[in-house]
């Protein structure tokens, strides 16, 4: 699945997007966050405070307990500051 990062999460991870294949036991957004955070220092830094990380699956806001099965594109970003 494709993972996108925005704003300071993009800066911390050091890339705007990547393709990942998490193991089958990673079933929810929260579990994906935990798995990604374990992939290296830059990820640990980006996901250091999971409470403020927002996620969208296929361009729709989701909560941490959302299942990721079937997702094509999962995005992670800080709280939004548009308008």
């Amino acid at each position, binding site marked *: 699945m494709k993972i*996108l990062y*925005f*704003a*300071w999460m*993009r800066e911390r991870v050091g890339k705007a997007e990547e393709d990942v294949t998490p193991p089958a036991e990673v079933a929810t957004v929260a579990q994906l966050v935990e798995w990604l955070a374990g992939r290296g220092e830059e990820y640990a830094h980006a996901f250091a405070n999971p409470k403020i990380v927002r996620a*969208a699956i296929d*361009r*729709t*806001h989701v909560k941490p307990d959302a299942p990721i099965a079937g997702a094509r594109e999962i*995005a992670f*970003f*800080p*709280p*939004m*500051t*548009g*308008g």
Partner: protein
Amino acid sequence: MRVRLQTEPFDAAAEVAALTGGRTDVGAVVTFTGICRASEGGEPVTAMTLEHYPGMAEAEIARHVEEAERRWPLLGVRVIHRYGRLVPGEPIVLVVTASAHRHDAFAAAEFLMDYLKTRAPFWKREERPDGARWVEAKAADDDAAARWSAPAPPRRDAAAE
């Protein structure tokens, strides 16, 4: 197009004209323009870069426009949000709402702005004399958006306007 994301400036008057031209049922038009300011929290800001999530931003704003149309009897809506680098004085966002009566146009414009501030996938990075930093989300904006989470308010009787 009711929702547009673009780097170039917008023409608020042209958008209003497109919504109202040739029709005689619109009685109220509310236009909100958000502008880049040269200071924030008492500190100078020299420029701002708006990052967005292409595809999701359009869809998310369009969903809120539809929600506004469900809540208020609108006769037209436009939302234009710029992205990229902007300097103080430049317009960032435009919301135009048209309706028969003023309360509906005002409420829908405020609703859309509150949601843009908190739910549309945009992120602001401010350039300051001591460096650049990402703008933090504000609790006041979350509070403003939360007031719309209650069931839709009863529509005012249009005939009573």
